[in-house]
């Protein structure tokens, strides 16, 4: 119980800090944190799949991009602002349908195959957007008018920031509740020992497909916010580099806890800004992906449980060798 309240406390602090941020920051800072919060929403959608169900999806960017493109393509062609909530629902729906179809196929495989086919199908989506007239090609498409609802106008940075904050909080609470519900526990069981789940009487395919679809829908939600924020979408939103980056975020933060994905998204953004900063890295700043690549390798090699596990690992070492290691391999959740 004490453990529970310390993480709830951290969460409250986290969201409060984010809520107060606009008052202490410049417009650049507000824009930056808006972007990071969107990536954080994308990261928790993936964490549910990877850390929750044990499904390593290397195609999360596809759902993100589809949500973004849907937001732009389904906005009215003239200059009337789209109704905020309806447009969001349409984006989520499009991403969800794609996730359902792709998931139905991909979940027929497992293990390494699954990783490869999710990557392949995401690449297919990239091609659809990149090569066909639907996507507007490499140039991308502009969103001319941002959606609104009554007095809420997402064209205003503060309103947008608030909308993103609310989305992140809502997404987190929904996914958290899912993870402690019978559905979530079933996913955890599938992750730890799918054979036993089947032997007990769980048909695992419907559970996995549902998780995959929900994950896709939330990623689509993040995509909608991205499109609305930038007013512009291009095929790179579906690129596998973004899929890879989201995976890096969740392992950086710590797989197995939703909070880890939040931490990871911010840590990743921090690393990117750090490595791109010229005062620190001079000529290397332009080759920041090298530093990032090395960091990813180092992180996985030496810190596989992620940043969020550091405080408790440190505390454990202070208390002495009480409970030694967990019985399973690293990077998995404990109950």
């Amino acid at each position, binding site marked *: 119980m004490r453990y529970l309240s310390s993480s709830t406390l951290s969460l409250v602090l986290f969201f409060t800090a984010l809520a107060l941020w606009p008052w202490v920051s410049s417009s650049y800072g507000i824009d930056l944190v808006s972007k990071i919060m969107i990536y954080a929403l994308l990261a928790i959608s993936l964490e549910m799949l990877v850390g929750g169900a044990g499904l390593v999806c290397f195609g999360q960017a596809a759902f993100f991009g589809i949500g973004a493109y849907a937001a732009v393509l389904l906005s009215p062609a003239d200059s009337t602002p789209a109704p905020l909530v309806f447009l969001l629902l349409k984006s989520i729906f499009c991403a969800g349908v794609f996730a359902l179809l792709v998931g139905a196929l991909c979940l027929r495989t497992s293990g390494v*195959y699954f990783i490869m086919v999710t*990557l392949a199908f995401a690449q297919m989506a990239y091609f659809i957007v990149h090569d066909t007239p639907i996507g507007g090609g490499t140039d991308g498409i502009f969103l001319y008018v941002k959606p609104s609802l009554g007095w809420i106008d997402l064209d205003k940075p503060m309103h947008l920031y608030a909308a993103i904050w609310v989305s992140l909080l809502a997404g987190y609470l929904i996914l958290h509740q899912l993870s402690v519900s019978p559905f979530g526990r079933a996913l955890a069981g599938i992750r730890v020992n799918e054979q036993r789940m089947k032997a007990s009487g769980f048909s695992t395919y419907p559970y996995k497909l549902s998780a995959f679809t929900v994950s896709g829908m939330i990623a689509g939600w993040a995509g909608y916010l991205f499109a609305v924020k930038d007013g512009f979408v291009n095929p790179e939103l579906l690129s596998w580099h973004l899929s890879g980056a989201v995976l890096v975020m969740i392992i950086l933060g710590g797989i197995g806890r939703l909070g880890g994905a939040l931490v990871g998204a911010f840590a990743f953004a921090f690393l990117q800004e750090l490595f791109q900063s010229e005062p620190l890295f001079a000529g290397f700043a332009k080759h920041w992906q090298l530093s*990032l690549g090395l960091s990813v390798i180092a992180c996985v090699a030496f810190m596989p449980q992620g940043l969020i596990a550091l405080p408790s690992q440190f505390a454990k070492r202070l208390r002495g060798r009480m409970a030694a290691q967990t019985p399973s391999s690293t990077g998995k959740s404990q109950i």
Partner: protein
Amino acid sequence: MDFAIFLIQCLNALQYGLLLFLIASGLTLIFGIMGVINLAHGSFYMIGAYMSYALAPVVASSFGGGFFSTLLVGIVASVILGYLLEWAFFSFLYEREHLQQVLMTYGLILVFEELRSILLGDDVHSVEIPKFLDISIPLNAVLTYPLYRLFMSGICLVLAIGMWLVFKRTRLGMMIRAGTSNREMVQSLGIDISLLYRTVFAVGVALAAFAGMISAPVSSVYPGMGSSVLIICFVVVVIGGIGSIRGAMLASLLVGLVDTFGKLLLPQISGMLVYVLMAFILLWRPSGLFKD
């Protein structure tokens, strides 16, 4: 469709398929034997291509060597690279979970791409076809086919046959086949498993790099070439079945056909067709055409 055009497309499909096989076979072997999913495999292809671009002038000025000398130097260099990489990096991945392997090799891609960017820049380069292969073979009154592409297909075929012979006829091949099905058993037989793994890995790297080297004159040398080939290789491995060389061959040829004829007949969606093929195979056989 004119017969000559059909023939040209078939030859193109064959050439593309055989080239894919060289790369994909390394990927599927490394996974089948060592259990490592290596995202950076496409980077070896890119490294090969950039090597043929960068080494050609060096080889020419050092000892007046031409295309084949550059190839030879490149092969040696990639085998050494493979050995070093396995020893320094990949050997630590064998016992790890797939997610960790995916992420570490993803980091490796970033490192390779940036190193290339630092050392050789981001420009697109072309590599010359050696003069004696730069001939067009006439097919009918109007159309010709480049000899160099036939040469590429020929070399890939020779290597494929060589691979088959090594697997079926040599002790090394026997060890490799045994290693695919039962790792512990091979070890308990006293075979130096580390050396075996290192050799397999180096060969895989060399094959991919070699594919890049011979493909450079035709496809030119550009930054994104590693990523695009990697994903197609994943499709080949999924269709063919992980760990199966036979599967990799059949799948590579299938992908070559679908891609080449797709570009001709359905150009708008040609980029997607390979994935549609993969989707159908998955519906029918989730573990690929040939099980390990």
